[in-house]
Structure formats: structure tokens, C-alpha cells
């Protein structure tokens, strides 16, 4: 039983300017971080991983995942299909960012902790965020009917948002009671001005990238639903 089809306006096909600008911005940040930002004396060049690791981590949790949760709540309240598309897009783009965190984290960790993985509270929480978003995607893949898929995803999105604080708290508590080896503490709070500029430029560039990827993914969701509508009309 399918839900009533809302009319969908096809997104026009034109060059994605936002994505182009975002890619240029990220490339510029890469150049600045690697070539024009001073090396931190205690940690060495590896400290620069911070600029892509921390920004990806922040965006994955506080932008992508938060957007997914909010869109989920709004969908259950307003039942607008567009909100479901926003949620699914935010989740998938968030997965890309989360993957970057998990790939860059151990590389940085090896240099400051001496070990690839030490169950650090934040990295472990990010690992679970990754699992949650994968589960969300698998759920969406397993439900065929659109209305039900949207409802189930929204429920999972909201429950996952409730889960995240518990994961953070549990892993943090676990860590503080099980001290792990730390050779160097990661970046001290006060960064010299040049590094701060790099950090905030990186944040802005990756945020722009997130917005571009989100819009692109949203377009795909719209097109997919449009194709499904047309398929149904033809079958009728």
C-alpha cells in the first residue's frame, strides 16, 4: 500500500556552482594547512591532521547528525516528504564525514598516543555514530514502501539522537577509570594566531562542502522519488 504521491518538482540540471566553490575552498585550505601553517614544535607535522580531523568530527556530529535528528522529528510531526529526504541526505553525507574522522583519527593518534586505537572517548563515540548511521541506511534499504520507510527512519533517527549522549557518557566514564597511555596531550587550547586562522578557514571550507554535498544528495533523493512516481503512474 503506497502513500498518496505528493507532486514533486524536478530539480533543474545545471552546473553545481556551490560544489565547485566548496572544492576550491577545501583545496585552498589544504595548501594553507600543509605549506603555509607553522609546524607545532612538540607534536610535529602530524598536528596538522587536526585541521581536517576536528572539523570533520564537529560537522559530522553537530551539523549532519543534528540535522538528521531534527528533520526526523519534524517529519513525524508535519509528514512532509521533503523532510524525510533531508534526513536521509544528512545521514549519508554525515557518513562520509564520519569516515574521514575514523580514518584520520588513528593516524594522528599513533603520533600522540603511540597506539593506533586507545578507545579514546571522542573517537569511540564517533565509531558508534558511524555504526548508527550505517544501521539507519540499512533500515532504509530494507523497507520498500516510502511512507513506512520515512516513518521508521524518523523513529530511528530520534532514538539515535537520544542514544548519543549515553554513548558519550559511558565511554567517557569508562576512559576516566581506565587511564590509557598518553605521550602528548593533543593541541593545547591556546593556538598561535596563524594556526587559528587555518583552523577557522578549514572549518568554513568543510562546512561549505557539507552544504554542497547535502544539496547534491537531496537532489538525488528528489530525482529518485520522482522516477518512482513516474514508474507508478505508468504501471497504473
Amino acid at each position, binding site marked *: 500500500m503506497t502513500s498518496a504521491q505528493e507532486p514533486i518538482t*524536478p530539480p533543474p*540540471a545545471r552546473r553545481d556552482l556551490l*560544489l565547485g566553490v566548496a*572544492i576550491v575552498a*577545501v583545496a585552498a585550505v*589544504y595548501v594553507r*594547512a*600543509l605549506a603555509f601553517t607553522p*609546524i607545532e*614544535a*612538540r*607534536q*610535529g*607535522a*602530524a*598536528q*596538522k*591532521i587536526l585541521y*581536517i*580531523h576536528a572539523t*570533520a568530527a564537529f560537522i559530522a556530529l553537530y551539523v549532519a547528525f543534528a540535522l538528521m535528528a531534527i528533520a526526523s522529528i519534524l517529519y513525524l510531526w508535519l509528514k512532509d516528504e521533503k523532510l524525510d529526504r533531508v534526513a536521509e541526505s544528512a545521514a549519508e*553525507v554525515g557518513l*562520509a564525514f564520519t*569516515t*574521514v574522522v575514523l*580514518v*584520520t583519527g588513528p*593516524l*594522528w593518534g*599513533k*603520533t600522540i598516543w603511540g597506539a593506533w586505537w586507545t578507545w579514546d572517548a571522542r573517537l569511540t563515540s564517533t565509531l558508534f555514530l558511524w555504526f548508527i548511521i550505517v544501521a539507519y541506511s540499512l533500515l532504509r534499504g530494507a523497507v520498500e514502501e516510502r511512507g513506512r520507510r520515512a516513518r521508521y527512519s524518523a523513529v530511528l533517527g530520534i532514538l539515535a539522537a537520544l542514544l548519543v549522549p549515553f554513548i558519550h557518557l559511558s565511554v567517557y566514564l569508562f576512559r576516566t577509570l581506565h587511564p590509557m597511555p598518553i605521550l602528548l596531550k593533543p593541541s593545547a587550547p591556546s593556538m598561535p594566531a596563524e594556526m587559528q586562522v587555518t583552523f577557522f578557514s578549514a572549518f568554513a571550507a568543510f562546512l561549505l*562542502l557539507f552544504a554542497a*554535498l547535502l544539496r*547534491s*544528495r537531496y*537532489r*538525488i533523493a528528489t*530525482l*529518485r522519488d*520522482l*522516477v518512482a512516481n*513516474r*514508474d507508478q*503512474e*505508468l504501471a*497504473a
Partner: protein
Amino acid sequence: MTPDNGAFATAAYVLAALVYAGYVVSLTLRERRLRQRLARLDSPSRPPSNRPAGA
């Protein structure tokens, strides 16, 4: 003594770029495929619909 770990930084930056680039490519390909499917569905070879003429 500043440790010599530039290789880690390079590896991290390269891998991150690969993840993002791979995702952009995936999105581009998927959008292209969907637009092609849409174009085929909207083509004149579509079977006649029940809608009244001029609708």
C-alpha cells in the same frame, strides 16, 4: 626535538581527500543515472495515459 612525522600528516590529508572525492564521484554518477532514467520515462515513446487531452 620536533618529531619527524610528516608522513602521517600526508597520509591523513590524502586519505581524507580520497574519501571526499570518492563521495563526490558517487553522487555525480548517481545523479546522472537518475536523470537518464527520468528522461527515458518522460520520452514520447511513453504509453498513452488516462488523463484527458490538454491536461
